[in-house]
């Protein structure tokens, strides 16, 4: 079969099983768009800004585990996508970005809409390619998908000069079934000797804890994680990116750790003597002050990326491999072995943990008369029976969603953790809804974040992706204001806007339903009404308490045991451990 580059590209996507391409046209990709016009297997979703193309593809990828695909033109198309690409990169999301480039002969001449896309994106992609010969196009696309989805996933960009997709140049097409790269062989199984050592340490622990992260979600290791955790009877805590991989309501679960983690999770980390880290990367929002991080613990770390191991925190037993396989290996060894965890040590460890739990660190004032943002999230959970896919933007609302929507399944909690990109939530929700048209999809956002990609309300109408936008409108950049309250004596420099749009009218202008909710008693009915409108995008503008802060909080430069709590705790906090 002889095809032109444009048709080859579209055929590659079909052969790769791609459902959706999120994109925006322009000069350098017109040949490709013409090829798209000639078929309808691969559906093109026309966004309103290229950043949103990447976020929507990202949301689709997080919700399905399949790579998200983005198509943008050269120059401004590519630069607009960079924020979205960097967002995916920081959270290790599989994505393939196809960018148009000026024709090969004029590359380097400052041609119209020329930027060095490969150069600009190099630090925020797993890999990138510039296609120099149409004969190599199909193989390059295959490599891009392979690299994006294997090992530690990540975005891969393929830059395609316009002459490569010239409709008049046709070459034989064959999509490779497999590719291999001599320089790239990600590890799958863990080293047996290391796993044995790890199990010895794990089983002899007095105060063990499992600390799991996004790697469990990315690597589909949740079943194995649950099995191992139950087998051991140890407490478990998750990072922001790991929520849902272990069911939140489970009694062994201590919830999230880190800056806005629970009191019990952070205290248990601090006092632990053995930590099993599973697909988590010891991010600074998790560790707090490194010098005070888990002073008594031996650390076992499972990660597919060797560079995540001993990067910030020195690890005692590294295990390179995919969580799913390494955990299976561990479970088998433990089940076959004679050694079992110490029941007495565990009993007193759980006793201590329960005393931290008794602090009830996520409790909040339920009688203030204001709409508390936490309450809205709890009601959102009720209205959706905990089954919704929840995307979020960045700020206080993101933390409330993480803390109060008890995620019990993986891939339901979709947020930008590593880059913390405001503007992520709405386009991501559109991507999720396309992937799961029958599921409830909510975008938890704030009045500042939502305005960063609000134009996507138009995309939501065009493709009929009825998501519910939960705007926790505190009339502040709440997260910024909170830091200014704590660290800058409440000098609220530029953390509020004097003018906000009327979101209800704005939603209506885009063809959607808008609701403004001002009283606590209206929260529940509003949510019920909104979710009953199955085929409409609804913008719920909740006027929340302006002064609410996210607790607990570990302030910058503090350790895990040094948390700021909402209510002064009783004795458990002061308790000393030898």
């Amino acid at each position, binding site marked *: 079969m002889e095809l032109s580059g444009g048709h080859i590209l579209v055929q590659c996507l079909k052969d790769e099983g791609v459902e959706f391409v999120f994109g925006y046209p322009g000069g350098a990709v017109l040949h490709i768009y013409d090829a798209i016009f000639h078929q309808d297997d691969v559906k093109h979703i026309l966004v309103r800004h290229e950043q949103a193309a990447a976020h929507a593809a990202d949301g689709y990828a997080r919700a399905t585990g399949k790579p998200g695909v983005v198509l943008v033109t050269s120059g401004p198309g590519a630069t607009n996508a960079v924020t979205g690409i960097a967002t995916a990169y920081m959270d290790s999301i599989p994505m393939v970005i196809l960018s148009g480039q000026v024709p090969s002969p004029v590359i380097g001449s400052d041609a119209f809409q020329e930027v060095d896309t*490969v*150069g600009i994106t*190099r*630090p925020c992609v*797993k*890999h990138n390619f*510039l296609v120099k010969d149409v004969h190599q196009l199909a193989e390059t696309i295959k490599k891009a998908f392979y*690299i994006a989805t294997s090992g530690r996933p990540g975005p891969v960009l393929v830059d395609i000069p316009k002459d490569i997709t010239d409709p008049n140049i046709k070459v034989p097409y064959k999509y490779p079934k497999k590719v291999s*790269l*001599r*320089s*790239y062989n990600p590890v799958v199984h863990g080293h047996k000797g290391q796993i044995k050592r790890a199990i010895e340490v794990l089983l002899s622990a007095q105060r063990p804890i499992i600390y799991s992260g996004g790697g469990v979600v990315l690597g589909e290791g949740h079943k194995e994680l649950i099995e191992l955790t139950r087998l051991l009877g140890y407490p478990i805590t998750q990072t922001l990116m790991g929520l849902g991989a272990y069911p939140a309501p489970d009694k062994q679960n201590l919830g999230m750790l880190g800056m806005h983690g629970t009191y019990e999770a952070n205290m248990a980390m601090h006092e632990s003597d053995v930590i099993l880290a599973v697909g988590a990367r010891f991010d600074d929002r998790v560790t707090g002050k490194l010098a005070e991080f888990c002073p008594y613990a031996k650390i076992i770390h499972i990660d597919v*990326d*060797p*560079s995540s*191991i*001993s*990067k910030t925190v*020195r690890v005692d037993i590294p295990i390179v491999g995919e969580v799913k396989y390494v955990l299976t290996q561990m479970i088998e060894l433990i089940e076959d072995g004679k050694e079992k965890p110490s029941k007495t040590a565990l009993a007193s460890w759980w006793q201590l943990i329960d005393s931290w739990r008794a602090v009830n660190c996520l409790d909040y004032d339920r009688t203030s008369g204001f709409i508390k943002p936490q309450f809205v999230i709890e009601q959102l959970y009720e209205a959706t029976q905990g089954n919704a896919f929840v995307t979020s933007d960045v700020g206080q609302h993101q933390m409330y969603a993480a803390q109060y929507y008890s995620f019990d399944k993986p891939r339901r909690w979709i947020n930008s953790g590593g880059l913390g990109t405001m503007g992520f939530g709405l386009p991501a929700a559109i991507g999720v809804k396309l992937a799961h048209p029958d599921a409830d999809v909510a975008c938890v956002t704030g009045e500042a974040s939502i305005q960063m990609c609000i134009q996507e309300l138009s995309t939501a109408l065009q493709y009929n992706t009825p998501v519910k936008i939960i705007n926790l409108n505190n009339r502040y950049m709440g997260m910024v204001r909170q830091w200014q309250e704590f660290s800058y004596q409440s000098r609220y420099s530029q953390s509020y806007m004097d003018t906000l749009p009327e979101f209800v009218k704005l939603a209506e202008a885009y063809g959607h339903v808008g609701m403004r909710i001002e009283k606590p008693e209206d929260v529940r009915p509003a949510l019920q009404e909104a979710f009953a409108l199955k085929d409409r995008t609804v913008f719920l503008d909740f006027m929340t308490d302006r002064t609410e802060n996210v607790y607990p909080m570990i302030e910058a430069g503090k350790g895990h045991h040094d948390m700021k709590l909402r209510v002064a705790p009783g004795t458990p906090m002061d308790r000393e451990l030898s």
Partner: protein
Amino acid sequence: MRHIISILIENESGALSRVAGLFSARGYNIESLTVAPTEDPSLSRMTLVTRGNDNIIEQITKQLNKLIDVVRLIDLADAPHIERELMLVKIKTTMETREEVKRMTDIFRGQIIDVTPTSYVVEMTGHSSKLDAFIRGLAEDSVIEVVRSGTTGISRGEKGLHL
């Protein structure tokens, strides 16, 4: 500690900038970097001299290995090895100083490869510290220009870095 990292990397355009970009983005230092194609034209060999404590060197090698284009690498400083650098020095000469420069060059086993009535060009290879010593031995105002290749190296014994 000083480390010499020797890298086999795909001979692709952009491969060098991936390595250089990694060092600048992560704040690692590069003392010197040499690169040239190998006997297999699809591969380049890079030799990179860097400094850092064990943790930093561990991260550097892991991050380099993570680059898709990097096929294999070793830290030469881990085992017995030989390192060499090439230097070309242009030296101002007068009738009175010519003999002394010639004698110095012989002592350091260099060669004079260009001669004019007022200058020599000396070629010298060796450990970087030997090249430093030669420069220090010359009269300060006599050096017109120094060109150095940066260190390259190879491990001792029959084991080699190849595919």
